[in-house]
């Protein structure tokens, strides 16, 4: 036994080669996942830093910490860093990269070199955007609405847009890679309806990325052309149409919300089944719901524009379609809950994050109904209600799922277990801090506080102070995991191949896995989530 263990230790993907070159030129999907993990964490803390400054400014109704110019840059760069450089890549580029080939029983993605190129494109786009941020920043809002962005802002609009343009190709290549891998590299016996829901969600996300991101690239390119060459595309003073920009921008940016949240739904399905020791409830409904969300997500962009001046009838169509998206989302939440029925639920850290996701995503989804309701949207749009709503989806949902996944697969990625007590504590802190930060913003929004205001009428102060207090707790909830996860790297690799006693091909490999993942291509003979059978056999 001893020799086997030593063998495994020597040959895992981390110790397979040494030196910076072996990382920067790697084609191993697991190493590239780690490169992404480090890069997006950096952007998460940059974006978080901007958020901290904003929340501090908003503690008082006056502008006493930062000027209007600075505040406008803060919320713009917070959005750019968090959405484009953290949330969009987060689960696909880190967990998807690491796990997709392993869940399929493959040695790597279909195009390993393309995968490395994706990371380099991310880094070039990221470095360029960072450069633009430190040399003056940008103040257009992450939505870059014209004609402000093309004709009026005096900040670094073009450099930031170029950075995002480059980053877009990183997304597109990753999406392409995932789609081809899922189609062509499944292990023998791994039929579509035996795929883990994590794979379904990555697949659906990749389809969205592949179809929507080029539209963003075109939109940003046109924005750059108008800003530099004064060609009239969006600015009415030059003969353009500003609403055209909004249509094009949201044609990407609404589906982008699903790029951020669908992967988390995949993670949650893995976590709930593993810790409830249950087969997922309604597997096919869950798989089809993900695909339905991906398709419907392309048809609702106009719900961002109910007061923009678009036609009343267009508004009605977009409102109706937005309500349709609620159905597959409801199906998912009900099925997760039903999965717990007659389970044997063990309260470990990852599943706490999954429960956090379900709770917060439910609130985010239900408040989405408010915003889909036309007459109510008129009052709520561009207020803090919207800010609260999308943070419930994108932070409460997507980030909770991401952290749950990181905690679940951390032993697989590193071979180490983290401190369970600290981990549970910080999951709790995160949940409390999140709600305290963002729930008051729903009320602020209904009261009528517009977003992107650095000063505000005095009657809004109490709720803003609550929100800032919550943000300080929330911040702690992000810093504690950083510490204990890094600390765990000092411990010996004792996690074992399958610390959670989970099903799924990735758990058949040692932790950390060897570079080639599987010594022998696995053959799949059963459906996913066969936990009951596993328990029955005393596994």
């Amino acid at each position, binding site marked *: 036994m001893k020799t086997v263990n030593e063998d495994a230790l020597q040959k895992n993907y981390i110790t397979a080669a040494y030196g910076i070159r072996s990382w920067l030129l790697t084609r191993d999907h697991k190493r590239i996942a780690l490169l992404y993990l480090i890069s997006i964490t950096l952007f998460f803390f940059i974006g978080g830093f901007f958020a901290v400054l904003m929340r501090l400014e908003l503690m008082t109704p006056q502008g006493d910490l930062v000027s209007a110019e600075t505040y406008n840059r803060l919320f713009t760069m917070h959005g750019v860093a968090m959405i484009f450089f953290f949330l969009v890549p987060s689960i696909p580029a880190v967990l998807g990269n690491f796990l997709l080939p392993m869940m399929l029983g493959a040695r790597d993605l279909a195009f390993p070199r393309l995968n490395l190129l994706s990371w380099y494109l991310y880094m070039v786009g990221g470095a360029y955007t960072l450069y633009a941020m430190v040399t003056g920043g940008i103040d257009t809002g992450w939505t870059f609405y014209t004609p402000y962005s093309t004709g009026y802002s005096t900040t670094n609009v073009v450099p930031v847009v170029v950075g995002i343009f480059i980053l877009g190709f990183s997304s597109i290549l990753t999406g392409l890679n995932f789609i081809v891998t899922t189609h062509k590299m499944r292990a023998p016996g791994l039929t579509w309806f035996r795929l883990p829901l994590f794979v379904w969600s990555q697949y659906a996300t990749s389809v969205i990325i592949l179809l929507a991101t080029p539209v963003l690239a075109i939109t940003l390119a046109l924005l750059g052309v108008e800003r530099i060459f004064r060609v009239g595309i969006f600015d009415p003073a030059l003969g353009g149409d500003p609403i055209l920009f909004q249509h094009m921008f949201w044609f990407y940016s609404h589906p982008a919300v699903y790029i951020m949240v669908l992967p988390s739904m995949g993670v949650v399905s893995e976590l709930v089944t593993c810790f409830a020791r249950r087969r997922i409830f309604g597997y096919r409904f869950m798989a089809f719901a993900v695909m339905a969300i991906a398709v419907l997500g392309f048809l609702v962009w106009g719900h961002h524009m109910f007061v923009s001046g678009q036609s009343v009838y267009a508004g009605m169509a977009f409102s109706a379609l937005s309500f349709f998206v609620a159905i597959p989302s409801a199906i998912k939440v009900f099925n997760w*809950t039903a999965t717990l029925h007659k389970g044997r639920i063990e*309260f470990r850290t990852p599943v706490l994050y999954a429960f956090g996701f379900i709770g917060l995503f439910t609130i985010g989804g239900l408040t989405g109904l408010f915003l889909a309701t036309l007459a109510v949207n008129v009052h709520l749009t561009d207020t803090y209600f919207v800010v609260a709503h999308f943070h419930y989806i994108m932070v409460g949902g997507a980030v909770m799922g991401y952290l749950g996944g990181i905690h679940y697969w951390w032993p697989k990625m590193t071979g180490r277990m983290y401190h369970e007590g600290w981990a549970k504590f910080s999951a709790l802190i995160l949940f409390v801090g999140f709600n305290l930060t963002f729930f008051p913003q729903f009320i602020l929004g209904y009261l009528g506080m*517009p977003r992107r205001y650095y000063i505000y009428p005095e009657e809004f102060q109490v709720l803003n102070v609550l929100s800032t207090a919550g943000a300080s707790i929330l911040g702690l909830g992000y810093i504690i995991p950083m510490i204990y996860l890094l600390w765990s790297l000092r411990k010996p690799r004792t996690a074992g191949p399958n610390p959670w006693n989970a099903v799924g091909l990735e758990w058949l490999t040692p932790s950390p896995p060897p570079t080639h993942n599987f010594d022998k291509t696995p053959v799949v003979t059963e459906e996913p989530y066969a936990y*009951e059978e596993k328990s029955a056999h005393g596994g």
Partner: protein
Amino acid sequence: MWDFPLLPEAASSTAAEVDALFWILIGVASVFGGIITAGLVYFNIRYRKNSKASRAGAVSEHLPLELLWSIVPLVISAGIFGWGAKLYFDMHVPPENAREVYVVGKQWMWKIQHPQGNREINELHVPVGVPIKLVMTSQDVIHSFFVPAFRIKQDVLPGRYTTTWFEATKPGEYHLFCAEYCGTSHASMKGRVVVMKQEEFERWLAGNRQEESMTASGDQLFRQFGCVTCHSQTSQERGPSLHGLFGSTVRLADGSTVTADERYIRESILNPGAALVAGYKPLMPTYAGQMSQEQLFQIIEYVKSLGGPQIAGERRNP
């Protein structure tokens, strides 16, 4: 600072209905959120790892349940959609008798013009109980006219007119915000809407008149820019007469028809070739860049004073 509201004041004729819909949504959200929370809590306690509850007969597929939790939300959604859409439609169609007020947004102020000649900045005085229609445009970037107490919000765009309307129900002062981010001082682009009793408002109108009525100013501009040479009743071979134009249906050279509203008149002044009236040559030069947004509104108000289609009918058939 501890005295803070949880709901905004409701001071317009549509606010109560928007609030009612909002409360319905809160009810729906509470029921669904409650079901999910109850399910999570109950299952987590009852089926925790070491509990002795029976696990016999566990199922992982249940079509009737799946259909139940798909169809029930669908039906509820359809109901909410319908109500929301109906109200949204009403909020877009001002009553016939609405008084008009003209709004120009610019970085970073609201400029208001009353037809009677009163002008305001970052303030809008209106009478209570009278529907007010706002005709709005921007002279630079996109802004958004937002009065939380009235539950109305409408983006204000450069290069086109947008409209919204409200009927204030309570005298008082209410916040006016710009809700669409418009650059550095976006957060300072705010003001107040002052709702007054009708007789007070009339007194205010009479007492704060800086200039002659918009119709009179428009008439003057009509002569000053030379519009009158082609668009008078005696020069019909060069340009169509504007008497009876406003609100009428105009037949264009390309065979299509268009309603002569504010947007149409604005476009005909700035880009005359875009919608040429049937039977006329494209002789008119553009006035783009020569008139301010306020002056355009004055000319429109003048054209309105020349009467609508019914008056035209009376004149044509004496």
